[in-house]
């Protein structure tokens, strides 16, 4: 950095050097504050989860993991993620295709609306589905007459999760696909390739890392969502408790090992997500 400074009288060179670099004591203090803060707020919590989960030994940890209600919660969480992620992935690709490959009126409004769920509090995201499908909601009477349960049942949990994770895939693809442009696709089409063939052989290879990135974030949120799911689930253990809700239930029952065993799985999921996220950022040669 100093090598390229403008020519200056030799006497002021030292002063100039000082004005470009932080003094050592500032550097050390700031580094210490930053790393201390990260250690305190980010590392200590991870350590605490392990310490608490294994507080009564490996056997107690294992027993808590394979507890009937805990396994049911894991199954429900997987079911929710396996339904939510494909739905929002297909939507994300379709929306990105429509928005980046065509010109139409109201395009920027549409892009804004897709991001809407990110600015709604999780609790409100749950509440709106209670207003639609709950016993006092729009379809409440019709649903109960036909004996269909949405709220306090799996469909409600899935709907709330789909809402919460709605923008993840679309918002990764839209900027990338508009940056890439449509020249390659147009070339393939003019050479006689079908629309689907063009998508799978040209578009998909171009967007695959960004797509996976969106899917990864969508999945992490789908498995970890708490507030919205908490409103629509009804907290029936072994039935409508997802893993985060099961952590809450066991924690409130002072079953510390149970709560932190569940938390350890979710923390493991978070760490795997972070590692894959770094990998995908490296693959894309960009950040976020």
């Amino acid at each position, binding site marked *: 950095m100093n090598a390229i400074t403008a020519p200056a009288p030799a006497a*002021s060179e030292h002063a100039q050097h000082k*004005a470009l670099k932080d003094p050592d004591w500032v550097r050390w203090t700031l580094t210490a504050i930053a790393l201390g803060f990260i250690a305190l707020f980010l590392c200590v919590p991870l350590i605490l989860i392990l310490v608490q989960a294994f507080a009564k030994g490996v056997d107690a940890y294992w027993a808590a993991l394979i507890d009937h209600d805990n396994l049911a919660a894991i199954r429900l969480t997987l079911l929710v993620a396996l339904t939510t992620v494909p739905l929002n992935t297909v939507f994300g690709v379709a929306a990105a295709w429509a928005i980046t490959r065509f010109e139409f009126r109201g395009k920027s409004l549409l892009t804004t609306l897709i991001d809407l769920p990110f600015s709604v*509090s999780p609790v409100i995201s749950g509440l709106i589905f209670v207003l639609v499908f709950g016993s006092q909601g*729009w379809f409440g009477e019709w649903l109960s007459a036909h004996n269909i349960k949405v709220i306090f049942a799996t469909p409600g949990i899935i709907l709330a999760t789909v809402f919460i994770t709605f923008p993840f895939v679309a918002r990764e693809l839209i900027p990338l696909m508009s940056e890439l442009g449509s020249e390659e696709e147009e070339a393939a089409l003019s050479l006689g390739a079908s629309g689907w063939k063009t998508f799978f052989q040209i578009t998909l290879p171009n967007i695959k890392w960004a797509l996976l990135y969106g899917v990864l974030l969508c999945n992490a949120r789908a498995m970890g969502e*708490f507030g919205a799911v*908490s409103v629509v689930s009804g907290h029936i253990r072994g039935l409508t408790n997802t893993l985060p809700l099961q952590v809450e239930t066991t924690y409130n029952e002072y079953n510390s090992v149970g709560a932190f065993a569940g938390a350890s799985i979710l923390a493991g999921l978070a760490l795997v997500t972070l590692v894959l996220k770094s990998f995908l950022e490296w693959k894309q040669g960009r950040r976020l």
Partner: protein
Amino acid sequence: MPGFRPTLAYTLVYLGLIVLIPLSTLVLQSFKLDWEGYLHIIGGRRVLSAFRVSFTTALVAAAVASVFGFIIAWVMVRYPFNGKKIVDALIDLPFALPTAVAGVVLATIFQPSGWLGKFLVDNFGIQVAFKPLGIVIALIFISIPFVVRTVEPVLEEFDSSMEEAASSLGATRLQVFTKIIFPNIFPALLTGFALSFARGVGEYGSVIFIAGNMPYVSEIVPLLIITKLEQYDIPGATAIALTMLVISFLLLLFINLLQMWVRKRSGQL
């Protein structure tokens, strides 16, 4: 280019079914209330207290997170040190860690018998958990990545020739920082602050375990919505939720204007 009609139609139908129709019920349901009924709900002492708690804790947390987030971003961009990649990945932990886990963990650390809670009570007489201070701590945890990730790219792209020009004109390091660097970073920092604040006001999972949830003292708005819902007070829950939604959209508008201003400014530089 094929596929315009099917993809756009699918996008609009899916958006309508999942997002727009459910959200519009919030507005339609609130039409059942007249203005007086609405004011009666929102003006209730418990509701006003919850709004006060939510907004002040989110404000304080966003401010603290802005200071530390700025320092972290500065260190990450400007100073070389070992293990930077790991630290960089860790900064996103609050994004990736489910909020309920964050809540349970922070409550356990800061409860009066917890690792840090005991230390703070014994040495300084400060109780964190089950007080508004606990809410602030949880919100700082949630907010840190927002600030770091908005400030970092601006710091990275910052044109150091301005620093060089200032220093060759005889400015001290402190002057370079306060007169050149900070004013250029400030809009990004303000955006990070606003994002943190908006998120903090609506946050639920990480807060409720550490908050203690005492009405009038440490009860937040999202919890009050759930409480009203559990009491089958749908109009109450709807009125509070709609008020919060309007406030967060106004915040969002402010953030977008801010980002436009930032882009315009950096375009001029």
